[in-house]
């Protein structure tokens, strides 16, 4: 059986001098096209490391990543990342940040006018068209994450990698952005791999939740299918039995079976 994206028996060790830390051990995960998969786990267990491996930003120690039956081991726009801390270039405007990606990815396939239109289209998709001439320093944290998302979406990636995209936001802004992401996923059918440490967010957004054990040598502890119908509405779900069951399951995993150990 072949998956759209396959993370295949990955080990990751960081070595500094003679000191070696094993961060990931034997991580295997298959993701289908159009699927929304979340990775949840305690801080420092290696979520970002795993995402960076899929993105090609971090080399593996063993194993490999296979996308559409081809091994990928270097970064590329087919696996666009929305980084944990937005990573917008401060000297470019909102428009400039997205346009940089559009110009690079579609330099051959789109004309100038098309690239402009595509940039604006993606900014409008995340409701940031109105602020296109602002610089990152002049917009709020939530807006920055929207622009980061627009930049990633504009690359038309095969897989969208989100590293705690809403982590640094207040609850209301986060809810708003989650709704945006759900709507965009509904509309475009992207394949998404998202890191989170928020249980509600994981259940609300995902088709599957991957729960990671604590490091060192973290691995996948459990995978939970979330069989909630889409489109999902946070208010109606709040009392939904399946929703509560999934939520309980993740909480149990995180806080009973794999409680955060300070020594780890």
């Amino acid at each position, binding site marked *: 059986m072949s998956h759209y994206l396959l993370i295949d028996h990955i080990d990751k060790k960081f070595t500094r001098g003679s000191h070696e830390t094993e961060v990931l051990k034997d991580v295997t995960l298959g993701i289908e096209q159009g699927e929304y998969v979340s990775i949840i786990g305690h801080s420092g267990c290696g979520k970002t490391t795993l995402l960076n491996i899929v*993105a*090609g*930003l971090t080399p593996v120690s063993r194993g490999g990543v296979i996308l559409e039956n081809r091994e990928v081991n*270097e*970064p*590329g*726009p087919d*696996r*666009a*990342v929305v*980084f944990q*801390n937005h*990573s917008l*270039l*401060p*000297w*470019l405007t909102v428009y400039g940040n997205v346009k*940089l*990606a559009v110009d*690079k*990815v579609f330099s051959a396939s789109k004309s100038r006018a098309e690239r402009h239109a595509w940039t604006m289209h993606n900014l409008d998709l995340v409701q940031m068209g109105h602020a296109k001439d602002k*610089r*990152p*320093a002049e917009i709020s944290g939530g807006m920055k994450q929207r622009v980061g998302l627009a930049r990633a979406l504009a*690359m038309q990636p095969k897989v969208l990698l989100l590293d705690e995209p809403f982590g640094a936001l207040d609850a209301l802004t986060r809810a708003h952005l989650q709704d945006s992401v759900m709507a965009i996923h509904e509309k475009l059918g992207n394949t998404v791999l998202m890191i989170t440490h928020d249980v509600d967010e994981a259940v609300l957004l995902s088709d599957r939740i991957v729960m990671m054990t604590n490091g060192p040598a973290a691995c996948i502890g459990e995978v939970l299918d979330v069989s909630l119908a889409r489109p999902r509405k946070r208010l109606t779900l709040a009392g939904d039995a399946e929703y509560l069951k999934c939520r309980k399951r993740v909480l149990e995993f995180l806080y009973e079976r794999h409680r955060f150990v300070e020594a780890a």
Partner: protein
Amino acid sequence: MHGLIRIKASKMNMSVRETKTAEPLASASAKILALAPRRANFTTRVFARAGAIAMRLVPPVVVIALVLLLWEFLCRKSGATLPPPSRVVKDTWELIVDPFFDRGGIDKGLFWHLSASLQRVAFGYALASVAGVALGTLVGQSVWAMRGLDPIFQVLRTVPPLAWLPLSLAAFRDGQPSAIFVIFITAIWPIIINTAVGIRNIPQDYRNVAAVLRLNHFEFFVKIMVPAAAPYIFTGLRIGIGLSWLAIVAAEMLTGGVGIGFFIWDAWNSSHISEIILALVYVGLIGFMLDRMVAAIANIVTRGTAAN
């Protein structure tokens, strides 16, 4: 500079308002009443702004006046070795009023001396900027280059500018390129070192963005490296221009020819102390302007980069 622009803007406002008031005057009187308080408000604003400008101008003017007075008082007495300011102005009045005369050789107005010096600085500094940013990028980007070059740079940068002069005279056998070389070698170190620090400090995030987009080396240099390191690069450029101007005067004293450095040396040899003082004032003012110029360019270019 900021203040000047503001004044211009408010003057423009005023003329716009005046044309506006002229029209309703003919039609309805009620509207004039409505406008009257805004005009009053406007005049108070002008006074406030003029006051703010005066607050900034008065202290330096007062201090300069006091220093001149003290100097005048100290050097007026017979037996003083230096001329008082009144003497300086009297002695050098011809040079002040006519900076453009040209009687051939090195008997030229101050404008020509200063512009000759500025040209040398411009040449040497431009070369140093290009080479400094390029070498700084290399050292900042490659660990190998840093390990190899950094020790050499650290030693060479402590060599005083003028110590290079005999060597460059031996190599170039001419004053002009030697002076330019001295400027180059003086200005290049802070540019290299600051550029390297700037490049090394580029956040990993930006490198990740570039990697995901698969920017090639040239695109990475132009679109990420230069803007990200710009604040550092400009710090180096600003230190560099100051050092260049310091070095040119000394270098020209030794190489001779037209130039403010040799002008000062020549004045000393003919005991025209007043001319030396006048030249120093010009050297100071131009050094100040050069520094401000690079700072202004830095402000424009790094707009937004420093923030965040």
